[in-house]
């Protein structure tokens, strides 16, 4: 059945891939090299760019003063720094007096590169740079003038912390890299650019410290990026799904953060960070379970306070996953466990509720998730109203109408609220979904079902890996590391980079880099 479906899909794809005659002609044009005659080049470029229909592609013809050589400056005005081009390219060219000077010597820009064929030239124009072609030159001059519009650096929105830096990544890759370079003033930090999509020409920047990160790991990530064959990958959340090993797994294997300080500390440990235009965030790989569980604040807070937060979070994690399931298991299968008074209290509140406990819990859990999802989409002015209606009135009314017993509201609300203590959005979803699975398991077999499901989950977690790094390392399998798992250690004692990354330099102190 699946094979048949697959066949149908594959054959459809093949049909779509038949070459379009127009495309192939354009491709030929792009492959050709730059000619010595300016006019020929201009007409070719105009054809490719659909000028004059295309409004913001500008062709500025200039005659060089002194030598009266014909030149043309080509750029896209909406993504280029036009005043800079005027001051540093057009003005010097026009005002030139000397006859013998070649064009690149006249320009007063900081950096000039050369393009021998149209393919490179087009790529640069699309990136916001300007191209200068001149009569008698068989290469085009690339002038860096990119100026994409994006918002400024703002405060962190989702990974909020009280103590520590507040800067967040923005949608501009250049800004993001600058934020990271600000934290890692190191000549060994490499920013490698990899093109990941064909049609839209999306690029991703790969950041790592050359003499720390493992070569194999860098190669693995680079290969994975280069082997992508998508028409367009707009931003990192989409790229994340292309890169993952297990795409339908409940457990995330690539860490996603909007905090430059966090990304920088991972680079320092030998991880690889991906940064991309249009994404106010970065991807960190490889990631272990612990990196999802941690927040940077635990290291910014003093040792006891940081570990107190960790203890709270692990408790919250367990409550959030197990609270409802345990309630179902105990009331259905192991009621002898509850002290008699409490049992009577629960029984009396349930007296007039017509549903089995598991239905009651599932109803309430669903309601909670619905309110949560709706609350996320509500326009902010009416948000608080929805919150009050949802939480207070709905809950109160449900109890008074004998649809839900009050104990269930306590249990579900506790589980729901504690899930917010898990700050990573991916792990948060993992927790919320596994909660439902545990409720079903405990509904079927009580504590036995829960334990069975729990160990299946642990077996699964132990078996997955992120870019070859076991998910629960360094706890098991054991690696030399700072042992920053459930609890952190004193900063002086966190001496080692994680051994599972096989970094080139495992000791943190007393070494360069």
């Amino acid at each position, binding site marked *: 059945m699946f094979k048949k479906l697959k066949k149908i899909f594959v054959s459809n794809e093949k049909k779509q891939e038949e070459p379009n005659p127009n495309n192939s002609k354009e491709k030929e044009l792009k492959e050709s090299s730059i000619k010595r005659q300016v006019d020929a080049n201009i007409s070719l470029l105009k054809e490719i760019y659909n000028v004059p229909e295309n409004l913001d592609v500008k062709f500025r013809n200039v005659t060089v003063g002194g030598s009266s050589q014909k030149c043309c400056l080509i750029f896209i005005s909406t993504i280029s720094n036009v005043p800079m081009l005027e001051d540093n390219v057009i003005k010097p060219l026009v005002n030139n007096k000397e006859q013998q000077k070649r064009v690149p010597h006249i320009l007063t820009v900081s950096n000039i590169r050369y393009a021998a064929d149209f393919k490179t030239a087009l790529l640069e124009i699309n990136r916001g740079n300007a191209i200068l072609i001149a009569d008698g030159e068989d290469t085009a001059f690339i002038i860096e003038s990119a100026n994409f519009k994006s918002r400024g650096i703002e405060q962190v929105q989702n990974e909020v912390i009280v103590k520590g830096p507040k800067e967040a990544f923005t949608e501009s890759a250049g800004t993001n890299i600058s934020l990271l370079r600000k934290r890692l003033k190191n000549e060994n930090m490499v920013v490698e650019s990899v093109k990941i999509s064909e049609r839209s020409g999306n690029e991703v920047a790969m950041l790592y410290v050359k003499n720390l990160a493992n070569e194999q790991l860098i190669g693995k990530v680079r290969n994975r990026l280069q082997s992508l064959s998508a028409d367009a990958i707009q931003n990192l959340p989409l790229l994340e799904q292309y890169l993952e090993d297990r795409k339908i797994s409940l457990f995330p294997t690539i860490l996603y953060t909007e905090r430059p300080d966090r990304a920088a500390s991972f680079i320092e440990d030998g991880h690889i960070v991906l940064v991309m235009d249009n994404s106010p965030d970065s991807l960190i790989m490889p990631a272990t379970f612990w990196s999802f569980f941690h927040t940077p604040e635990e290291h910014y807070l003093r040792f006891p306070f940081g570990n107190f937060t960790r203890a709270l979070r692990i408790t919250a994690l367990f409550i959030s996953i197990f609270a409802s399931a345990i309630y179902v298991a105990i009331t259905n299968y192991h009621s*002898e466990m509850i002290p008699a008074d409490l049992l009577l209290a629960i029984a009396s509140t349930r007296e007039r509720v017509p549903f089995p406990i598991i239905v009651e819990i599932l109803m309430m859990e669903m309601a909670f998730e619905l309110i949560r999802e709706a609350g996320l989409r509500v326009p902010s002015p009416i948000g608080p109203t929805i919150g009050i209606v949802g939480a207070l009135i709905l809950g109160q009314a449900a109890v008074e109408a004998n649809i839900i017993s009050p104990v269930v509201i306590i249990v579900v609300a506790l589980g729901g609220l504690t899930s917010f203590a898990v700050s990573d959005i991916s792990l948060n979803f993992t927790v919320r979904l596994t909660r439902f699975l545990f409720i079903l398991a405990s509904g079927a077999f*009580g*504590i*036995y079902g829960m334990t*069975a499901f729990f160990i299946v989950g642990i*077996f699964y977690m*132990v078996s997955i890996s992120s870019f070859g790094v076991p998910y*629960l390392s360094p706890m098991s399998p054991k690696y030399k590391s700072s042992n920053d798992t459930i609890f952190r250690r004193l900063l002086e004692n966190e001496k080692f980079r994680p051994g599972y990354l096989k970094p080139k330099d495992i000791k943190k102190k007393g070494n360069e880099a």
Partner: protein
Amino acid sequence: MESSNRKIGIREYMAIAFLTVGTKLSDDTPTLLVSETLTAGWIAALLTGIISIVPVLLMIKVLSVHKGKNFYEVLIFLFGKLIGNLIAMVLLLIAFSALIIDSAIYTDIIDTMYFTTTPAIVIYGVLMLVCTFGAKKGLEQIGSVAWLLLFYIKITLFIVLLYAWQGGRPSFIFPLWGGGKGQIIKAGITKVSLFADFLYFGMIAPLVTSFKSFKKGTWIALAVVTIELTAAVMAYTILLDYTTLRLINYPFHEAIRNINIGFLTNVEMLFFPFWLLATFIRFSFYLYIVTMLFGFIFKIKQFSYVLPVVATLVVFIGIAPEAPTFTIFQLRETLLTIVSPVYIGVPCLMWITSKIKGGTENEKKMEKN
């Protein structure tokens, strides 16, 4: 299963050993030990551990000569294909019966002590389903899970034993020699196969990072497990007295029923999940070993594909006996008695053969030089 090619560390190996052998103190093993020796069951437990030093020592000696080979490969090397495979078949048969009998006992424990209304076959089915999943993931994963959960499982066990110690009457362990010294020695020898698992750890010897850690891990595990079992039998005797202990099959579960913490009077459900975790890990490992041995004997490289078949067989054979509480108890006692000479005999035989063969091989080497 690309990652299953990786080796397990000493921690993981020890965790597996602790959980597979150590969990025996929570089934009917203590009752078996006490039935003839009366109050001296704990001495018998200690004795089995001490006697076990001989086969374990010999096995390690033999394996150390053939580093990089597992128990089966050494068997074939020493005894040739025919006899080697024959011995391996006997070992497989033992392991398979032990898996069936033990899993039937654990199903019975869950069924009679906790889920009295749930049909046994459903409990058995879920148990083996989970264990197949675990075994299918591979040894490395079983080891990791064992290590991750070991601490919590042992903490709860410690609490139970501590409670039993302070809740009982220490005078119950007297008279010290119980049913008599002869009975103690008899029980110690016939029940020595409680530790027969150590023989099967030889199968995974080359999968542990180094032979040194295998050796170290095995000795530590043997020592700890012996102490654990001894302490447990002692604790049960103190808490329940030997007369009761002889009558009930699962003293661990009776003991946790006796515990009450403050206002919580029935806390067995706090301990039950941890015991279950140990159970799942234990049978995952047994299942893995049985299919691994099966795979080696019948030359099946991808032996993990046999797992579901083995697990299904286990469920259907294990569920067959009626009144499992009594039948299987008898079966287990018989099995243990039969296995004991094999457990001690096979390593001895291997060691002697190895000495003779090794001698000739050394001579050959000398000649070559």
